[in-house]
């Protein structure tokens, strides 16, 4: 055996470990920012503004915190490899329930403190109901390595189907409850809704 043998064996060992993998991200929802928009004027409703119920839309912007996780670096993994051009984002804090709480009396059915979510029509690209929205929020997503938000749910809108009894000042709190017993919330501005 000559001195080249260890080098060759080393190269062989390195060669056997080369493979491809995704870049793994773990993510949790950092915030949900809710804004009130007027569908007729296509403007964001300002505090004390009046909006017709038919044109009322609530828009929710979701943001996540992502962390790249570590990879094992020996045989059976891709530490030595050139990664596949794909990112995988896994949500580690699953959303369990979504509530839209009326902070003022809305109508005879929904008093202050009630959850009005069952009366909402959700508009997102996946499914138009609360369960579908939750499923979309929790699912593992993949994206191009240069734009890993390509398939992630970042924003959705919804409309409240129930009408208020009268033109009243309204304010809502949006609460995302998680399976871990935590929640992330946001509240709208105070604005007037006309029936």
């Amino acid at each position, binding site marked *: *055996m*000559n*001195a080249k*043998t*260890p080098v060759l*064996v*080393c190269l062989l*060992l390195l060669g056997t470990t080369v493979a491809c993998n995704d*870049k*793994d991200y*773990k993510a*949790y*929802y*950092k*915030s949900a920012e809710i804004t009130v928009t007027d569908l007729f004027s296509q403007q964001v409703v300002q505090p004390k503004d009046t909006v017709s119920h038919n044109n009322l839309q609530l828009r929710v912007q979701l943001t996540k*915190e992502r*962390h*790249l*996780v*570590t*990879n*094992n*670096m*020996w*045989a059976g993994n*891709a*530490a*030595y*490899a*050139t*990664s596949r051009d794909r990112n995988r984002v896994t949500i*580690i*804090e699953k959303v369990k329930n979504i509530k839209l709480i009326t902070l003022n009396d809305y109508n005879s059915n929904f008093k202050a403190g009630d959850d009005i979510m069952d009366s909402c029509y959700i508009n997102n690209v996946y499914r138009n109901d609360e369960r579908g929205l939750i499923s979309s929020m929790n699912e593992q997503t993949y994206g191009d390595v240069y734009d890993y938000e390509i398939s992630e749910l970042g924003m959705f809108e919804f409309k409240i189907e129930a009408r208020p009894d009268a033109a009243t000042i309204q304010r809502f709190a949006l609460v995302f*409850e998680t399976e*871990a*017993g*935590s*929640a*992330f919330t946001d509240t709208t501005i105070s604005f007037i809704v006309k029936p």
Partner: protein
Amino acid sequence: MKVLSVIILCCLAHTALAQDAMRGAVKKGSLHWYVKLAGDYHFNENDTGPSVDNEPESGGFRRQEDLLTAKDAIGSRIGIGLQRITRYRMFFLLRSDVKFLRHSLLLNYKAAENGYPGSSYTLQERYNFTEYALNLHLAMGYSLLVAHGKGAVDFAMGANLHIPVVGESNKGELIHGQTNNNSPYQDAIMYVQTGWGDQKPHGNTDGAYIPINVLADFQVAYTFNQPAVFSDRKLRIGLDLGVAGEGNYLNTVEVTTIRANRETGNKYKFKDLHLSLGFFVAVEI
């Protein structure tokens, strides 16, 4: 199986180099094989702390300095090596050790110091992990004969390739706590990633990465040329000092605190500098 592969690889390297050395041994000096036992004391106190890439006391909050602490650790090594001494008393050392080292980290979270003023919530958690690594040393030095040739004081310095052969990562964990007893909800208070051994460092987005730490290695040893206890086999005892070069961190534990309203807080890291002082005994074979 992985460990065995690496050990076999090292044995092959030893054999090849030994053969090369023995061909010229008569003319150029002497060659000695040793088996070795060693214990290392690892200084981990300075391996933890808030990350420098986070602003201190950002957002008007105090920063908890002792959120993540590491205990000093004691490791052990067994290995084989060869020493090639020239007629000018210069020598080369090549040795490989298998190293065992158990780390222990303490997470001591205080909500009041991490964005929840007035909260009495605290959380303590300990992370333990045992590292198995292969160390390949290559060093050169000078052997100074003393005591009329019965002994020699060796000084050597070189590089140590520290190759972890096992490792583990928790792949990221969100930790919750009841920071407000009057709230029906818990708060997300920390994101923790523990990774050690042959793991790619957190945040390393490059696909390729070689799991080797290059450590600087210093050795002072005394060689008994004719010890009474081992029937004329040489005996070496001495000290090894090792430290990692800047930027080579494989044992990483990251804790990112999360303040009220899920605002990202400070980041704390355990980055193993591999600063260690070892005592070894080696017997010629």
